[in-house]
């Protein structure tokens, strides 16, 4: 479903990577590995269509993502290393608003259920600025709970999470793969994803 072919990335004067390619089918997870500065985030942003590869092509369901634009974006859920939550809004408002802006509808009950899963029930009416780093990350991750779009692109999703939350998120990603979803993610810590076929890609090796 998701194919990348011969991707090349140049940042400034430096070539970060070239000749990168992979194929990912439904139910598969791609673990992106590499040292700091190897271009993991750059590759993820390319896969989202946020930046253009210097050369090479990315295809979704056989079509180049440049051509698909809207259709591709409605299949894609991207979680960057920035949380994309508003400090002034409460966790509940953040969830509802990011769903609305992504063109989806989320009921209050579903949003509260997602917050319960990330352990923030009881704090849903507190402005996010009063939450800790880990809790803010959980608000960002709560987006994934009701998420049914097939392609997840996650940049360091496990950062700032405690052991329980890491296990919970691994389970969530596993369930997504079992539903036939795809995921591409980077991480520096070893994590066991309970289900799905796992592929690895090492950058800068």
């Amino acid at each position, binding site marked *: 479903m998701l194919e990348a072919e011969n991707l090349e990335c140049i940042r400034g004067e430096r070539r970060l990577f070239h000749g990168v390619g992979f194929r990912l089918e439904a139910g598969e997870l791609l673990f992106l590995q590499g040292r700091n500065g190897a271009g993991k985030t750059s590759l993820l942003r390319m896969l*989202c269509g*946020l930046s253009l590869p210097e050369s090479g092509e990315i295809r979704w369901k056989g079509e180049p993502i440049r051509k698909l634009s*809207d259709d591709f974006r409605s299949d894609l859920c*991207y979680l960057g290393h920035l*949380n*994309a939550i508003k400090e002034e*809004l409460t966790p509940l408002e953040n969830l509802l608003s*990011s769903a609305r*802006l992504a063109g989806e509808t989320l009921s209050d009950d579903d949003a509260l259920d997602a917050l319960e899963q990330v352990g923030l029930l009881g704090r849903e009416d507190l402005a996010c600025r009063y939450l800790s780093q880990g809790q803010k990350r959980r608000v960002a991750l709560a987006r994934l709970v009701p998420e049914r779009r097939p392609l997840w692109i996650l940049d360091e999703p496990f950062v700032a999470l405690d052991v329980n939350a890491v296990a919970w998120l691994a389970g969530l990603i596993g369930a997504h793969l079992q539903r036939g979803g795809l995921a591409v993610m980077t991480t520096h810590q070893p994590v066991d994803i309970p289900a799905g076929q796992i592929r690895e890609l090492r950058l800068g090796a």
Partner: protein
Amino acid sequence: MLQIVSYTIARDLRLALRRPADLVSVLFFFIIVASLFPLGVGPEADLLRQLAPGVLWVGALLATMLSLPRLFADDHRDGTLEQLALSPNPLGLMVLGKVIAHWLVSGLPLALLAPVLGLQFDLPADALWVLTFSILLGTPALSGIGAIGAGLTLGLRGGGVLLSLLVLPLYIPVLIFGAGAVDATVSGLGPGAHLSLLAALTIGGVAFAPWAAAAALKIALE
């Protein structure tokens, strides 16, 4: 389509109201600039009446510009802008929503404040009406054009100065026709022609600027 515009407006308004200091600082800037002039120039009614349109319009224009850098900067910093760009909704429409919300918290209150400040310049009643109306009509163009500048300078160091350099020349027509409308009223010519041109600038600014700004944002995100 309209839904996403109105939702973006509602979201930005809610964020602005949770952070009232930004809104208040824009209004205070306008009040201070407009109040310093009569104090500095002295109490000559004729001179003040002549200065009023220009001073009030320049004040409103600079106050609008003061709030521009924040139009996209917060969304950029916390990653929301990436999510907006990846949304299946057209980015241009969401930028349009943000421009309208920006006008509602800057242009609209400035216009409502203008007649009160105009009293300090001894403007006659009909000129005060035209002043309010011209600011009401012209500030959407300022927000729209400003959005392009804010998009182009997003994430640059010293972007604020660059933003003024980019945007101020484009603001000149709005300033000329806006202040001209009030001038024409004071001199008895009638503001019709100026206001029509101002309306044309605003229609152009609000209709086309969001798409240009959206293109600028996509470049800034790369």
